[in-house]
């Protein structure tokens, strides 16, 4: 597996994952670059314990968490995220709902956001999510459910 192949194949999903983790395009680019730098450094020593995709996703999550930790204030990122989110011509109410949802996503814990971001990737399987997060396959559903409920509670308080 060459770096160019990995980059060509995984750059888009990694960027999506980073963006969903961070909610900011600029920060997602930072995380993307850090991810592929780490991939470049580590690819020669990749032992094949997991699939390349799982390995890269793990690195991407770590990079996103690092960028997130470096973030100065949560509010700055939230504003940026809302500014840069592109929801194509929704009705006002739907736009507000989308805005609330984005804001709620930004306020979730890293653990919850990671599982939601991974599950929203095209073709991400149950097993892959478990491997990336390092949790048993049987707990993916419940973790995802917890994250979703938390999100729901924030967006639509009872």
């Amino acid at each position, binding site marked *: 597996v060459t770096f160019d192949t990995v*980059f060509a194949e995984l*750059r888009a999903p990694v*960027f*999506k994952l980073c*963006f*969903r983790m961070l909610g900011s*395009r600029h920060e*997602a*680019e*930072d995380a*993307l*670059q*850090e991810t*592929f*730098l780490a991939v*470049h*450094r580590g690819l020669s020593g990749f032992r094949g314990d997991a699939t390349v995709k799982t390995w890269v996703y793990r690195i991407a999550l770590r990079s996103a968490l690092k960028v997130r930790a470096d973030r100065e204030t949560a509010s700055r990122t939230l504003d940026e995220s809302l500014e*840069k*989110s*592109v*929801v*194509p011509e929704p009705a006002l109410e739907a736009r507000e*709902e*989308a805005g609330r*949802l*984005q804001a709620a*996503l930004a306020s979730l814990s890293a653990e919850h956001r990671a599982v*939601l*971001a991974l*599950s*929203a990737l095209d073709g*991400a*399987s*149950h*097993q892959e*999510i478990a491997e990336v997060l390092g949790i048993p*396959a*049987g707990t*993916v*559903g*419940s973790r*995802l*459910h917890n994250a*979703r*409920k938390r*999100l*729901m509670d924030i*967006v*639509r308080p009872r």
Partner: protein
Amino acid sequence: MRRPPLSQHTTDVKVFVPRASNWVEARGGDVDRCETFEIAVEQRRLGALSAPETNQLDEHLASCASCRQFADFVGHSEKVMTTADATLNDTDWAYIKKTLRRASTVVRDQRLLHFILCVAAAPLMVLAIGVEPAVVLPRFLAVMTLAFIARVFLDRRLAHQMHGIGARNADFFDRYRAFVKRQVRMLWLSILWFPVFACLIDALGWVLGRTDEFTTLCRGLLVVVAVLVSVWLYRVPLTRYRQIRAQLP
């Protein structure tokens, strides 16, 4: 409250779908049972439910407003997450790839630097320890070797910090790459300087007809100068690093 018993698994993936006999029409009345179905909603999205389990879930959703609301929210939140995704155009990707290429060059240069330092340090150390005190070089080389080894670690730490910052700034990489190349060149020169300097000292003592004390003093002075130069060599990238860092947003 205990979660209801789980179903017999019809696939090799463990899912949280209860036995049909335990399913209830949970119209907002049994939160715990509904939670089990809500987890099944998530499982279905990931393709982890078998066809019979999916049918059972659909049956339940048809009769449970609470779970239906949750399923709707799942779909809605997924849609918002995916439609709000930022995208990168070809120019963005080209820029990112260019930056990555530069970064990988820096990493390669850095590895080369470390390799050369390690290769250079080993024979110098052997020479410094193994040669008799009366012969050219010993203390001088020992100190210089230690200075070199210290610089390897300092460089590693510095490089680590620079990579983190450099990944966000393509211009920075150009400057840093040039810096690393200069480091490598200076290293080669340094390797040549040591024996040359030591021989010069001995030759100077011989020409001037001075005593061993004079030669020792000169060597001592050279060691001090060499250490100061080494420290200065480290101060240069450190200062540059701080300057660049201050300019970054």
